């Protein structure tokens, strides 16, 4: 009795693990498909700009490479964050990862500045609103 239950438990556990693995696999597949689709769209738009077309193999290669590079980036970002004794990946980490490629680093730099300024503006507006609210609240009572 006990043995059978334990066996069944083992089987269930293994099945769960298997299914979990399958889930992982399926997720990866879906992600890869998403990347492939996006890359295809991008290539299409770029091709239109230059009146050139991208073959399927090229798009597949780019998609696969992008996918793997994402994996590498993630690992590097995590390593950088840990190196800075942080548990969250920040813009600094991203910048460090992209510094190799000049164009990319410039792009990211600009982007980060834009985002920072946007955040700043948001904060300013929020403060103003909060300030006004306080004033009104103060006044009212």
């Amino acid at each position, binding site marked *: 009795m006990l043995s059978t239950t334990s066996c069944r438990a083992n089987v269930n556990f293994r099945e769960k693990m298997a299914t979990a693995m399958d889930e992982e696999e399926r997720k990866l597949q879906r992600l890869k498909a998403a990347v492939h689709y996006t890359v295809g769209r991008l290539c299409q738009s770029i091709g239109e700009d230059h009146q050139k077309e991208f073959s399927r193999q090229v798009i597949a290669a780019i998609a696969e490479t992008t996918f793997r590079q994402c994996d590498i980036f993630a690992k590097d970002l995590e390593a*950088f964050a840990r*190196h800075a004794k942080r548990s969250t990946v920040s813009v600094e*980490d991203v910048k460090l990862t992209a510094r190799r490629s000049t164009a990319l680093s410039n792009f990211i730099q600009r982007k980060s500045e834009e985002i920072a300024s946007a955040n700043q503006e948001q904060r300013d507006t929020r403060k103003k609103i909060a300030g006004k609210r306080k004033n009104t609240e103060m006044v009212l009572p």
Partner: protein
Amino acid sequence: MDSVDEDLSARILLQNVIQTESSRSPITRSASQAQFQSPGSRVRHSIRLRRSDVVALTPQEALKQSIKKKLRESTSRSSLPEPPSKRWAVSEGVGKINTPAPATASLLYDDDITPRYLLRGILQTEPETSLLVQDRPVRKEPELPSTNSSLHSNRPSTGLSDLDFPDMTTTVNLSNTVKGLRRKRPCRSLNITAFNRQLEHEGGSATEKDLSSLSSASPSSITFSLKTPFVDIPNEKRRFQRKVANRKKICLEEFDEALRNRQAAMGGDPELSVREDQQGLSETVRSEGFTLGLSDLTAPDITHDIITSKTELYAPPDDTATTFTIATQDKDTITGTQIQREMGGMKDEEEKDMEEVGEQKEYKMEIDNKDREDLAVDAGQREALVRQEESKSQTEEVADSRTGEDEELAKSQTEGEVAESPAEGEVAESPAEGEVAASPTEGEEEEMTESQTEDVADEGRQVVEKGLTSQSLLHNAMHISRRAYCSEGGVKVAGVMEGGRGYKSMGAELHPTETGCAGRRSEGDTAGEWHSGPEVGASESAHTRTVTLGSAPPSPLPQEDELEGLSRTGTSLGNEEMENSMPPLEMTFEPENNAPHSSISSLHPITTQSPADHEEDWDDVEERDGIQSEELSMKTPAFVREKRNALPIDPLATPTILKDLQPSVSAGAAAAVKPKAVRGKRTGSAKKDPGLSKSYIMSVFKHFAKTKVSTDVYPVLKEIMELYFDRLADDLEMFAAHAKRKTIEVEDVELLMRRQGFVTDSMPVNVLIEKYLPMESRKLLIPVATSGNYVIPKPRRK
């Protein structure tokens, strides 16, 4: 009976056996029955034994009975015991031996089990056992002459016949087993060796001697093939003895002597001689410098340098000594290269102040722009280059470069004694040699300043001393040895500064041997700079560590210098340095010293005091240190020497590893060599642009290429390597900045390695460390591994 007293044990045993025969376990009978081919006889034998056991027999009677039984057994048995077979094997075929072996073995085992048989064997075999074997056998033999005589009578009749085998074997086995009962185990070993000898000789004389020897040998071994058991026993015995301790020392000493001899013989070959000198002078260096031609010292330097800053308290004297040496070298090289690049045409006439300023600048630049590793690399490279150059040319070229380098070195060197040493060496040489009046003198000054900055006292003193004495050879040797120290030290960074004392001594020694001042200076500078860099990050413990090391190795050195008769004019400087170095040694920043050199110290607010001290010392020193340093060096000559001697062993053990470390530098070599180690090798000669020496680069590349490599690749390689190192330094700097630090730490390098793909989830850093670095580096990097579960310093890894 006379024999009774002597053979008290045997008689008693026999009596006991006889009395307790009935209580014997049935195993023997059944076992014997099973084993024996003629169970019938065996049974009979056992029965007889029992009968005899029942009756209280006198020893002689028991012996007689046993002998008779054995005779019967032997006759009945087809298998022959082994020991006799062994004896016969030599003369006869092995077949005989082998077949009887199992039977006899079984019989033997059976006999062994029962004390009766053992005793019987003793009694029976005693007369047979030659007097040569042991005292005991001899004793026992006469004890039972009557029984023995019977045995003898039996034996001679069967001596040559097959029948004899079982008899002999049993007796032999019994005797062996009985002997096993004896307490004097060591005697057996003697017999074994004797037996082995006899066996080897193929004894010919199948005499009782053989038997006795055989019997003396462990009984169990007799059962099987002739040689193996006996051979095993002595080997095992030897194994237990563990006589390994003395070897290394002897090797080292011999090595040193050999090196010195070589030096004397070679003379002309600058590098080799330099190396040898180094080795001769610094034992610690010997091990490392000796292993590789060019690249020996640099590899460990880098790793040590990198590590020293991190490893704090953990610094066994040996390690520190080695690291100390290495660090200095790296410093020298780094500064030299940097100086060359940045300073360009520093003139000899520039004052020390200029130099110091320049050093500061360089130091800053180095700190800011370069990774420690880069420095180390440069230092290593420079060192290598410098060394080469020095050894090769002591001419004006050197002098010119020297002056430039010296100046630069003096400036850039704040940390390293190395800088001092090379500078000193150069200085010493120049005045001594008189090749370049201006440069050498300036070099001296520079060196002195450098020494101040570096480890203060030691170097300063050395510089001074060296300058005074123009012993080119000594300089060269000293310099080399100094370099060797640096390279060995690996952990220079921390050590250089701290080991003021050590450095001084080292510097003193090294200086005299300096051949190429420029190169040295640059090295020293780079080392100094490099030291300052790592020192900044390095914990105090590291400094102290390096100090101790530095003091250890250098102390003997300065003495040597002193002995050599270096004038003490520079002593003042040295003293000053010593004074300065002393404070860093004690880990007490010297505000007083720093004050005048505030600019310098400001460079590295956090930096270890040593660099600042060095600079300050340099300025102030000129007078005080020399004496103090000398004194300090004098204090621990023996102690330091011992440490130095103890150190080199490891590097010797891993020459190939050092080689492995180097090759990674070349761009083409994608081998998974620690980039740190590789980088260390980059040494910029004072004369040329910074870069590793051609021979070094080529050798490393060839080692990893595993095919023929044409020399055309060198320019390409050099360029690639420069790019590689630049990028490396850049990355490390970025990583350090990313972590909001100003010093490149070991973890930065680790992160880089991860990015480069050397370190993965399945290949941790420690594995690479163990795979590619020499033992000293490994000890520093992984203190836990060698600490025996007792780690004092904070573990390097979080």
